[in-house]
């Protein structure tokens, strides 16, 4: 199991720019480990959310201590794309309590590939970028059986976690199995203030198996079963009783098809997500309600990769069909009165087909260029009669279906004179409105306290994006400065309509999704690393976002100046790390969205690792000073966790 452990030494995040003349990926690929991010993060058994937070252009919106929503380049999840091993999955919660990332566990994750903007948008049309979570698999090899058992404990919310991984590999067969369990109670913010309704319990089982039929020809099957129970969302008026996902796929992989085509992968997949909200633990609600949601997605992709020494290319043909239904039943406080029932997602079918092509050319020793082109058709259909009748209250002339064509194109260039690497890119992309934006029916947003009504007449949102990055790298020191600007046309946002009456008791009003003529989002970052000695390393990061929209001023959930400064000491067996995270006060907040200024904070985390024989021990303290704080990503400004001591232990065999 040594091979698991070596990756521990790799830096936490790598901006993928290979030094060889091999095809260069210009996108920002966050590779936490080749084998498993398990040993790479400061907190080995932390959540996928912890792991993604703050990597590259990703920030996580936090509504509780579980299932955070990834924002890419400061844009909400409708604008980005999250896939698991290339599979499209639709969360089943109208309140975004179950982003796709919540159905994967850190222990079965191999890496997260984060593409900013249109770069590498093979997964489909999106504006902000994409995250693909790749699960760990052993692969074919010499006959070997092994695995690990792990356990962890966190003092703040008494989180207990445990599980095991097993693998078996042979020349023509491999199998990986992974079982993880987590259980946490309410967490405490700084000053030991308990945050009510914040516990969770989660089970995750992941299986992958491969069979080599003949040389260069493989079959793979995989299954994820994830179940979370009694998940508290302190920032929301309701919790989750059960969130369950079953994700399965079968894939055919063919290597070395011909001299110029070196990979052909075709995958078929199906997944179902069920999300049951629950307010039974809340003592005081205006009305009791049930809000179950369900999505079913069936899809495929077929990917070809090939090239020669100076040119590499990729083609992907993909498609999926999704059905999203969410309902709400409210139980009247007047005895004998009938239940109030409505569809909040009126049985929306999405049929999506996508063709994508990417070419990378090496234009000499120092220069390369990548172009990609994508074309998709996107069909939305209101699949439920009751749902259609309901929406017709607002849109009497609406039709059942709407077909869109989504186009995207990007070009990026890399030039590497001496110690410098310069990147420049321009892109155009479009996206269709999400299910809530197009067809949501009285979806309550607890941040601005408005009920939201979807708008089936929305046009595609368009993005024109430019990005620049410069990296300077010497043996011990490296620095990278980057910036990306998104000019978004027909920006989709909820706008208040004073003539409408709220549905949710206590709501401030009703917003209808509309489109701004344009909005702009700027992302900037500076990353530095310095290696004092083979043992001592310092890394720092500064990032800042600014987003404004025509007629609305500041856009919500933007990052103020945020910084990270970390010092790492590592020898072969021991590692110690101290990281300071902080942000300045956010003054460019969006009062329209219910935001208040978020105050500045600094949080200090320390951790240490020891690898002794087949054991890995990890312990640390997060928020050492027990600071009471909340950040720009905290929904309703709920405070973050106070001081937390954690212990992780992993035994490999």
């Amino acid at each position, binding site marked *: 199991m040594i091979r698991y452990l070596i990756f521990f030494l790799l830096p936490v995040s790598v901006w993928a720019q290979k030094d060889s003349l091999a095809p260069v990926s210009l996108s920002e690929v966050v590779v936490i480990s080749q084998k498993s991010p398990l040993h790479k993060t400061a907190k080995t058994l932390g959540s996928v959310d912890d792991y993604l937070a703050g990597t590259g252009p990703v920030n996580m919106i936090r509504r509780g201590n579980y299932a955070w929503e990834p924002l890419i380049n400061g844009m909400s999840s409708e604008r980005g794309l999250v896939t698991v091993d290339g599979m499209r999955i639709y969360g089943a919660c109208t309140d975004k309590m179950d982003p796709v990332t919540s159905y994967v566990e850190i222990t079965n994750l191999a890496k997260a590939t984060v593409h900013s903007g249109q770069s590498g948008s093979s997964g489909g049309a999106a504006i902000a970028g994409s995250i693909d979570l790749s699960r760990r698999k052993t692969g074919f090899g010499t006959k070997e059986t092994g695995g690990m058992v792990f356990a962890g404990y966190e003092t703040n919310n008494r989180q207990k976690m445990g599980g095991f991984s097993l693998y078996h590999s042979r020349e023509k067969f491999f199998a990986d199995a992974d079982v993880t369990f987590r259980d946490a109670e309410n967490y405490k913010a700084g000053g030991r203030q308990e945050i009510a309704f914040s516990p969770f319990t989660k089970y995750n089982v992941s299986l992958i198996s491969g069979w080599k039929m003949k040389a260069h020809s493989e079959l793979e099957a995989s299954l994820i079963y994830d179940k979370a129970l009694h998940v508290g969302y302190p920032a929301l008026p309701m919790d989750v009783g059960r969130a369950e996902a079953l994700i399965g796929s079968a894939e055919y992989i063919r290597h070395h098809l011909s001299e110029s085509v070196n990979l052909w992968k075709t995958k078929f997949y199906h997944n179902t997500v069920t999300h049951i909200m629950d307010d039974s633990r809340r003592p005081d609600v205006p*009305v009791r309600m049930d809000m179950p949601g369900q999505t079913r997605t069936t899809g495929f992709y077929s990917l070809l990769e090939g090239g020669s020494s100076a040119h590499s290319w990729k083609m992907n043909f993909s498609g999926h069909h999704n059905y999203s239904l969410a309902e709400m039943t409210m139980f009247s406080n*007047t005895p004998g*009165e009938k239940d109030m*029932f409505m569809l909040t997602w009126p049985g929306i079918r999405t049929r999506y087909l996508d063709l994508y092509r990417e070419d990378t050319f090496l234009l000499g020793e120092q220069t390369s260029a990548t172009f990609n082109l994508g074309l998709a058709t996107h069909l939305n259909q209101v699949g439920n009669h009751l749902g259609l009748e309901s929406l017709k*209250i*607002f849109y*009497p002339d609406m039709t059942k279906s709407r077909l869109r064509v989504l186009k995207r194109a990007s070009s990026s260039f890399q030039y590497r004179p001496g110690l410098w690497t310069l990147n420049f890119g321009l892109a155009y992309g479009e996206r269709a409105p999400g299910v809530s934006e197009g067809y949501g029916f009285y979806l309550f947003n607890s941040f601005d306290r408005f009920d939201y009504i979807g708008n089936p007449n929305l046009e595609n949102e368009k993005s024109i994006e430019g990005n620049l990055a410069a990296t300077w790298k010497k043996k011990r020191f490296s620095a990278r400065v980057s910036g990306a600007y998104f000019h978004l046309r027909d920006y989709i946002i909820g706008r208040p309509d004073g003539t409408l009456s709220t549905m949710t008791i206590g709501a401030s009003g009703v917003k209808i999704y509309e489109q701004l003529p344009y909005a702009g989002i700027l992302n900037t970052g500076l990353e530095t690393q310095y290696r004092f000695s083979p043992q001592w390393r310092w890394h720092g990061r500064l990032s800042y976002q600014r987003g404004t929209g025509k007629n609305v001023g500041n856009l919500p959930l933007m990052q103020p100046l945020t910084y990270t400064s970390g010092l790492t000491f590592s020898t072969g067996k021991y590692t110690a790390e101290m990281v300071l995270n902080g942000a300045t006060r956010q003054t460019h907040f969006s009062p329209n969205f219910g935001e208040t200024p978020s105050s500045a904070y600094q949080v200090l985390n320390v951790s240490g690792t020891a690898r002794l024989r087949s054991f890995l021990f990890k312990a640390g303290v997060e928020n050492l000073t027990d600071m009471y704080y909340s950040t720009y990503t905290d929904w309703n400004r709920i405070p973050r966790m106070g001081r937390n001591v954690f212990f992780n232990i992993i035994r490999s065999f």
Partner: protein
Amino acid sequence: MKHLIYILVTGLLLAACDSQEVTPDIPEELRLAATLQNTTHKIALYTPNGRFQAGYNAVTFKITDPDGKPVENAAVTWHPLMHMHSMSHGAPASAVSTTRNGLYQGYLVFQMASNDSEYWELTLKYAAGGRNYIVTEKIEVAEAAKRVVQSFQGTDGNRYITALAEPVSPKTGINTMKAVLYRMDNMMTFTPVRGFKLKIDPRMPGMGNHSSPNNTDLVSGETGFYEGKLSLTMTGYWKINLQLEAPEGTILKGEEVSESREASSIFFEIEF
């Protein structure tokens, strides 16, 4: 063989004609609510739910002689009468029309239900074969589950009665809403009123008085009904607040719902 088929087919056709003539078909969805009888005829009255109830009642009926033969195209008038302790009064009743298949149709609006000591009597007068007939019998009028009729005095001094006719089966979405409006000229005379407006404001008192958009106020149309559009965003209990507006724009009865006023003094109720 061929002849046999002809005979069978002809027989069938004759039988079909015959049955149509002898017993007019009552639409399947209707239920028998009452039977009135005099020495010469039997009158069977049908309503959608098999009973009379306070409010608007669409009634289909058939008149048959002792042989069971239907009496068609008679000129019929009907007069409901409420016997109260100290007084009696009538109720709005539509004109009676004959239908294609020999049935009669119309509606009655009962302002109240009958009870142990106060009762409704229905009188039908009809002319057939050159003779006039009359039948009067007591009928049961049940309490409506929800408020579907309003009797009130307008600011113009007149008494009005309005009753909810549709939707009979409300649905989530946009419903066609119909109501009737009568002026009570005296205890026995009720005149249909045209040209007014019934303003509607549907609310859910159980949901913080949530309202729905895109409702259309009820105006009188060709059919004699006041007709408009009612949006219901979900199932459950709805209060349809009403305001009666005279042609020149004065509100004769009812108040606008606001933060300080939860409901109008006149309203219908719908629960589904």
